[in-house]
């Protein structure tokens, strides 16, 4: 018996496979990048179908938005055509086929899709589902596990994002990226700005996008959302402004001198919350210590603070990445 959810799932997974095969075959890198945006969008729909709404949110904003733009920025600095290889690499094909066959063999024993008795649904998960509402006062289980139960992981991941941004700045943030406004370019290169429909549309959209980012940030406890998604959505609003209007104007509003220190501030807020819980007599990131009489209130406060830290770091990292890639002059 096939349910509707399974049917949608089968169709979408097939579409995903077709998109990936097209990405392999096409040599025009611009088309490949556009296809990867479509691929991310289809992935986001699949995640919604599989009840992973928070992941869908993230994939839609990161994969279809930011990562496509970073790829395009790189194409503008390098080249948009892939060279035709001189020969087919049969060795690579053999390795891939053998590995693929081994993995396929591995799936034979796996529990079927949607099986509630599958070992992945362990007692740990049951505990999260039954107890997290009372312990943290946060209805969204993904948020409470992310920011409280597995807060250490998330702090590590925020630090990885921070480190990646530092590394990109070391590689590309040097002399050739000018923080000072450059001389106005000729009108032909600013053609986006001259298109009235794009301008009007962007003007209507940018405000709601930024507002929506704040909603996702602060409503993440109750519905899908949180610091990661909010940060990316906020950055997407700023990037839209920079693309349609002017890089320099956007950079004047969100100056590198402000956004770069904010990257570190977000991580500091996260780690600082952990240190604060130590001073309240709890464990590192054990938010219950904030309010010994109502541990759930303490948890809510702690989750709010670390999500805020994540949001600040992620939004500023994404803006910095965009400005660094797209502000660099062609060699």
């Amino acid at each position, binding site marked *: 018996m096939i349910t509707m959810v399974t049917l949608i799932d089968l169709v979408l997974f097939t579409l995903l496979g077709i998109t990936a095969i097209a990405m392999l075959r096409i040599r025009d890198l611009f088309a490949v990048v556009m296809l990867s945006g479509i691929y*991310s969008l289809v992935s986001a729909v699949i995640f919604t179908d599989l009840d992973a709404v928070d992941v869908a949110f993230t994939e839609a904003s990161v994969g279809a938005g930011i990562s496509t733009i970073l790829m395009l920025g790189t194409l503008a600095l390098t080249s948009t055509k892939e060279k035709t290889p001189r020969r087919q690499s049969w060795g690579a094909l053999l390795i891939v086929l053998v590995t693929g066959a081994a993995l396929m063999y591995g799936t*034979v024993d*796996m529990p079927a899709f949607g099986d509630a008795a599958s070992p992945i649904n362990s007692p740990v998960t049951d505990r999260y589902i039954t107890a997290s509402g009372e312990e943290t006062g946060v209805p969204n289980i993904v948020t409470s596990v992310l920011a409280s139960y597995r807060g250490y992981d998330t702090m590590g991941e925020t630090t990885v994002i921070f480190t*990646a941004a530092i590394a990109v700045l070391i590689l590309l943030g040097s002399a050739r990226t000018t923080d000072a406004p450059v001389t106005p370019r000729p009108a032909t290169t600013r053609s986006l700005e001259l298109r009235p429909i794009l301008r009007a549309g962007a003007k209507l959209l940018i405000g709601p996008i930024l507002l929506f980012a704040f909603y996702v940030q602060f409503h993440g406890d109750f519905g899908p959302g949180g610091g990661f998604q909010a940060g990316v959505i906020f950055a997407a609003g700023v990037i839209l402004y920079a693309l349609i209007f002017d890089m320099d104007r956007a950079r004047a509003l969100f100056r590198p001198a402000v956004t770069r220190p904010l990257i570190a501030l977000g991580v500091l807020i996260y780690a600082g919350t952990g240190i604060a819980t130590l001073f309240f007599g709890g464990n590192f990131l054990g938010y219950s210590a904030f309010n010994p009489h109502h541990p759930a209130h303490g948890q809510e406060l702690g989750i709010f603070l670390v999500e805020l830290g994540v949001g600040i770091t992620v939004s500023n990292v994404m803006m910095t990445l965009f400005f660094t890639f797209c502000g660099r002059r062609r060699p």
Partner: protein
Amino acid sequence: MSWTSLIDHAIGHYNYWVCVVLMMLGFYIVIASGNLIKKIIGLNLFQTAVIMFYISMGKIDGGTAPILVDPEKVSGPVVYTNPLPSVLMLTAIVVGVATSALGLALVVRIKEAYGSIEEDEILAADRASDAKEQAQYAASAAQAAKTEAAQQGHA
């Protein structure tokens, strides 16, 4: 095994099979493509295949998104899909875009240093500059040997 059970098995494992195919497509692009940007796109494919695999495993039939609902507003027990894969994969996606940005930054610097983002051209340029260096070294060594011999001849 009867036909119906085979079909059930296929439907129950289709997600995993597509994940394996996606992963291998990404793997093939990483190995076989000479273009550095294409390689990074291949890595992204590989990564999304893993993410898709985890999320597929967490889904429970008849489940709903893991956001607690008010028990008074629904009749009967609510089944929640496993929240743990969502948590792990959500952060992986954001970390993934940050790390692929780092990869793209390296590609931009390679383009500026070598004038190309094709693997074979970069390797050829490396070999050419190596050969040039070795030739220079050999020439200067021969020069040094010659002057030494000349000095010994004087003595």
